[in-house]
């Protein structure tokens, strides 16, 4: 036991003391800030005014209404908001085809004084009836552009249809007033203060952090094992330590470093989210995505569940990474050999993320809760959306503990033989024999 403590202490102290740790700890939050902030900043900055020419071949006020709706569309909110579209309406009754063709020739050219509009919107009476409008533009591949344009046109089309049905203009105004959905999350039979968006944001962040942590620290266990092998220190160590002491010491030591670093980052993230509006304000960005700015309410139970499953997941995967490190003799070897483990993590993560976000109480979500490889992602994710029942949670922990024990058992057997074998990477058959013989 004392020897194990010595191994853990060495692993922890040497890692925390290393320059790499200090740099990654400082750069982590910076990167995190950039990852959250940059897209917001860019969406705010980069959204150019779209120049749209409306070819109005329709009768009545359809063109006017469309122009008005487009003119009223804004980028951002509050003081920083500005116009989204620059609109020009051409009344082209009967000449639509000709004007269209001549304008298209000027479109999609490199920006310059000669270049034409970003898009053409063609309005006809038939379109109003069928609801199928034509837009030709250089920005049709931008999903956000198209969604906002559709939403904007929706209002105009609706208003024009009602107006043609002779609906009173006052009624029209009332009908056309936009709606807003006030969302609130219900947990444990209570309405919680947090909104659905911040809840999504939290779930997403929790599973993303778990995913990154497992890969990053798992790979550290692997390269640390390999390092001991390549610099031959393992020979001296294995004369006084059992392979399991070596492996557990390493896994626990690296895991402790991971927890330590995550704690630092969590504190940084908390600070960042609490002060995000102020920070964004200082760089003059009007946030279009309010989700990031609202601080999600994180219950201690969620923190606890995330922590437990991070640790279980870490033991499950880090053992396998240690085994991979023990099997290999060079970094080139590990790059290939770790692919199955990394794929396992990636697949478990993706398979858990999307179905659960969509349908947190669905069958797939429930099944994933009890699959040891997926549970470390699935359970915290499900829990952040809606707490699991106590038996489910307990059974899930049990499944994952067994999974982790199994993985550690296999890993320890590979490790025991692997750390003293050099040269060619063992074949699958040889590894199987190591596991079988022990």
């Amino acid at each position, binding site marked *: 036991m004392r*020897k194990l403590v010595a191994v853990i202490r060495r692993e922890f102290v*040497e890692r925390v003391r290393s320059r790499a740790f200090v740099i990654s700890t400082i750069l982590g939050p910076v990167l995190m800030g950039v990852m959250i902030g940059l897209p917001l900043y860019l969406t705010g900055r980069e959204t150019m005014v779209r120049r749209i020419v409306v070819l109005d071949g329709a009768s009545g006020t359809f063109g006017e209404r469309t122009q008005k709706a487009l003119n009223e569309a804004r980028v951002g909110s509050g003081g920083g908001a500005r116009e989204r579209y620059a609109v020009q309406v051409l009344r082209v009754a009967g000449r639509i085809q000709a004007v269209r063709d001549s304008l298209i020739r000027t479109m999609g050219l490199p920006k310059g004084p000669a270049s034409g509009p970003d898009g053409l919107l063609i309005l006809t009476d038939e379109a109003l009836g069928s609801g199928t409008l034509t837009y030709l533009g250089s920005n049709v591949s931008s999903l956000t552009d198209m969604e906002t344009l559709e939403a904007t046109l929706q209002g105009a089309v609706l208003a024009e249809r009602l107006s043609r049905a002779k609906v009173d203009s006052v009624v029209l105004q009332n009908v056309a007033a936009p709606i807003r959905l006030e969302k609130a999350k219900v947990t444990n039979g209570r309405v919680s203060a947090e909104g659905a968006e911040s809840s999504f944001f939290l779930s997403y962040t929790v599973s993303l952090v778990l995913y990154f942590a497992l890969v990053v620290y798992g790979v550290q266990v692997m390269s640390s094992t390999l390092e*001991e092998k390549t*610099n031959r*220190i393992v020979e001296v160590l294995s*004369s*006084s330590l059992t392979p399991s002491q070596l492996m557990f010491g390493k896994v626990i030591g690296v895991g402790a470093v991971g927890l330590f670093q995550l704690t630092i980052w969590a504190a940084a993230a908390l600070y960042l989210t609490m002060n995000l509006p102020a920070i964004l304000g200082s760089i003059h960005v009007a946030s279009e995505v309010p989700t990031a700015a609202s601080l999600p309410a994180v219950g201690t139970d969620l923190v606890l569940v995330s922590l437990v499953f991070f640790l279980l997941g870490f033991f499950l995967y880090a053992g396998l990474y240690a085994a991979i490190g023990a099997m290999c003799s060079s970094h080139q070897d590990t790059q290939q050999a770790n692919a199955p483990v990394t794929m396992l993590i990636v697949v478990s993560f993706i398979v858990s993320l999307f179905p659960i976000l969509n349908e947190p109480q669905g069958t797939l979500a429930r099944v994933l809760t009890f699959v040891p490889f997926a549970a470390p992602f699935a359970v915290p994710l499900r829990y952040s959306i809606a707490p699991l029942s106590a038996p489910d949670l307990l059974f899930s922990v049990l499944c994952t503990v067994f999974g982790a024990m199994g993985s550690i058992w296999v890993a320890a057997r590979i490790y025991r033989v692997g750390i*003293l074998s050099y040269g060619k990477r063992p074949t699958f058959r040889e590894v199987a024999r190591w596991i079988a013989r022990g």
Partner: protein
Amino acid sequence: MPEPVISLERVTKRFAGHTAVESLSLDVPQGGIFGLLGPNGAGKTTTIRVLLGILAPDEGSVRLFGHESDGRALSARIGYLPEERGLYKKMRVLDHLIFLGETRGIGRAASRAKATLWLERMGLTAWSARPVEDLSKGMQQKVQFIGALLHDPELLILDEPFSGLDPVNSQVMKDVIVALAREGRTVLFSTHIMEQAERMCDHIAIIARGRKVLDGSLVEIKRNVGGQHIALGFTRNASEASRILQDRSLVAKLDDYGASAEVELASDANSDHLLRALVAAGVGLCRFELVEPSLQSIFLSAVAGDSELSTSQTTNA
């Protein structure tokens, strides 16, 4: 006779495709220096790994200090310097030694005290707070050596301790080993450098191809070899001498180095015949001495017939 410190009983260790050690029995008596000799690939390192418990034998048993237990459980009483040396490059020297002491099972404080003492003795105090990678290769070797013995082991196992050492460090290490043996500790070291073994060892065992071919105390072994051995040194006409030494009626075994030679006389010849023949042929002699057989020649005749030896012999001689 006191219980041997190490006792191997018909130990066999096989790896995929070949047998590294075959039915090897060996007793290492307490105290003194024991040399485990053998050509490259003879199974010395495997034997050491098995007796330390790093590898489990496929057959046979290992007893250390009279116990059936694993070398790891007794690690506080055993020091080990492997042939493949390695340290954590980024770790500070003192921290590293403390860690090695801890893994051997002695406390942190004791480990620190011993490490400090040894660093001072080896003249490395100024380097104790520096990372290992800043040290020269020779200094790193000293650090490794300290790591093997800072916990005051009763038994010190050194695998090829002198390989890669410069003469100065080699001397330092030799002095420490001899001093430890004088204190009553047991030192087992493997080597293929016979001169070193001959000067240092009280007992030797020669293994080749995983089997023991000879063991016992050096004095006994030399006595048992028998025959008359003569060491020769030539000043001129060495080629002439070489021709005479080929004469099977005079010389039974020849180890010719060009400017010198070691021979075993044929059973019915005597030294006078040889001397007369050499002088008559005009060979200039600076040495003509009746000697004990050298360990080198004992070794060569013991492992003769080992085909692997033909290559290793030239590099080791």
